[in-house]
């Protein structure tokens, strides 16, 4: 038996979320771990530290934009080569789209948004986040083959598992229609800290009154090396770009620290941020619902509190 982990890399470096998937695979104790890499990446032997035995590396320019259908074929064909009956991957825009296709190709049972290691004393049971973070569902997966997509920050990375991995070139088998979707343009946003990947997030809502007041939010984010985010009405009014909107209908984030400034804490907003490890709420209304879901709260005017917090961070040398 063995486990296949699909790995994503950005700028030649393996993503932190992919290292989480490797840790998950190693801790499952389900046999050898094989990794599949279709992005350009260096030092792949080092994945041995996370318990990987073999890395299958695909070098094919046609995969550089991660075409979903072709990536799904590559994953299924790597699983077949590795004799893997479990595929583990961390959630991403590619993985979320590819996982169901891999499931059908491998005749595997798919579980998405998995937040903990499987329980195997009575079948194979994984815990998934459901009802937009309002509940967990322990789900029993039937069948030989399984595809699991792992939620961000579901478990801490462990790089003390093994030695060095063997890297092998691999040519997957593609389906006839795998390149039917053509990428015509890609627009990357500016700035180097991307919201879905960020470990620290500073977010602001309608309480900020207008786009001209975001300077203090950016200063605070800069001080923390955090990404910036916003509530839905803020992006609807074009105060901030759409890709910053977090919540049920926006991006879901799970950073170590989420600071919410002038956001009421509506249930749809919470749905996108309630998996954050620590939540700080700054709101002038002591009755704001967000305080009920916060770890730390400050009742005060954002225009007064935010600059003070930035100063305090500066002073503490954070």
């Amino acid at each position: 038996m063995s486990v296949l982990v699909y790995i994503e890399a950005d700028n030649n470096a393996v993503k932190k979320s992919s290292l989480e998937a490797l840790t998950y695979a190693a801790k499952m104790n389900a046999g050898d771990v094989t990794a599949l890499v279709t992005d350009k990446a260096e030092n792949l032997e080092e994945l041995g530290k996370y318990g990987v035995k073999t890395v299958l590396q695909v070098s094919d320019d046609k995969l550089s934009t991660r075409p979903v259908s072709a990536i799904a074929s590559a994953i299924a064909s790597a699983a077949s080569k590795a004799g893997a009956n479990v595929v583990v991957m961390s959630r991403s825009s590619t993985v979320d789209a590819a996982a169901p296709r891999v499931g059908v190709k491998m005749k595997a049972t798919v579980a998405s948004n998995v937040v903990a290691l499987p329980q195997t004393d009575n079948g194979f049971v994984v815990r998934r986040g459901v009802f937009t973070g309002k509940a967990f569902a322990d789900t029993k997966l039937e069948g030989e083959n399984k595809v699991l997509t792992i939620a961000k920050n579901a478990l801490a990375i462990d790089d003390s598992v093994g030695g060095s991995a063997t890297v092998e070139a691999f040519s997957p088998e593609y389906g006839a229609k795998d390149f039917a979707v053509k990428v015509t343009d890609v627009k990357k946003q500016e700035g180097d800290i991307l919201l879905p990947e960020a470990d620290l997030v500073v977010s602001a809502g309608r309480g900020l009154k207008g786009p001209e007041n975001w300077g203090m939010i950016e200063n605070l984010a800069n001080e923390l090396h955090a990404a910036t985010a916003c509530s839905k009405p803020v992006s609807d009014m074009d105060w901030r770009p759409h890709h910053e909107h977090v919540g049920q209908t926006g991006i879901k984030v799970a950073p170590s620290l989420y600071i919410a400034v002038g956001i009421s804490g509506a249930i749809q907003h919470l749905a996108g941020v309630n998996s954050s490890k620590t939540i700080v709420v700054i709101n002038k209304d002591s009755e704001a619902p967000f305080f009920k879901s916060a770890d730390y709260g400050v009742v005060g005017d954002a225009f007064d509190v935010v600059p003070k917090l930035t100063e305090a961070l500066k002073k503490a040398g954070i």
Partner: protein
Amino acid sequence: MNILVCICHVPDTTTKIKFTGTELDKNGVQFIIGPYDDYALARAVELKDASGGKLTVLNVGEADTEPTIRKALAIGADDAVRINAHPKDAYFVAEQIAAYAKDKNFDMILMGREASDYNGGQVHGMVAEMLDMPCIVPCMTLEVEGNIAKMGREIEGGKEYVECEMPFVAGCQEPIAEWKIPNMRGIMMARKKPLEVIEPTTESAPTEIVNFELPPSRGNVKMIDADNMDELVRLLKEEAKVL
């Protein structure tokens, strides 16, 4: 254009979730069209209005989902299909949709990027794979030129614009279109529109929920004086250990 929109029937987003054993406690819960499906439906209505054709809405569900289906008809679908089964899991639902759509020549099959109850986000991809079609998710813009669909989707750190030939499957989300609210005329007309009920092709579902659990509530919020941000920084560093 011949469009299929798949909708789910989910608790209103503000619902407090409770369970009885391994089922959702439906007592006092108001059900709605899945919020992401609502975006798919809204864009489908616009495309149909612009080009003509037919818009069918499909739901895999038991009889209690019919008010939700009628709402979709009131918003602008021409006819509806209900596959009479408890939607056990994503694979089961995808199998039903694929079996229905297989020989119907839909130009596109639209649905939400995920259901807001079980958040699987799998049905679109499974249907596409079963029917050997492309699938675009999350689909945030959708235009049609001749036989080509042009779409935008969010990727890490930006947006990607793609195109493919029809037919295709898409899992939609905002801002693809503004939600449409049914008007009186739509509601009256919806009563007379056909709603066909068909039986499922199989009963098998590969997953089973054995237990639900509510997440632990965060400990009582610790309040910090607005004039003492040094204390907040200290707590974030020493107590929460996030700095």
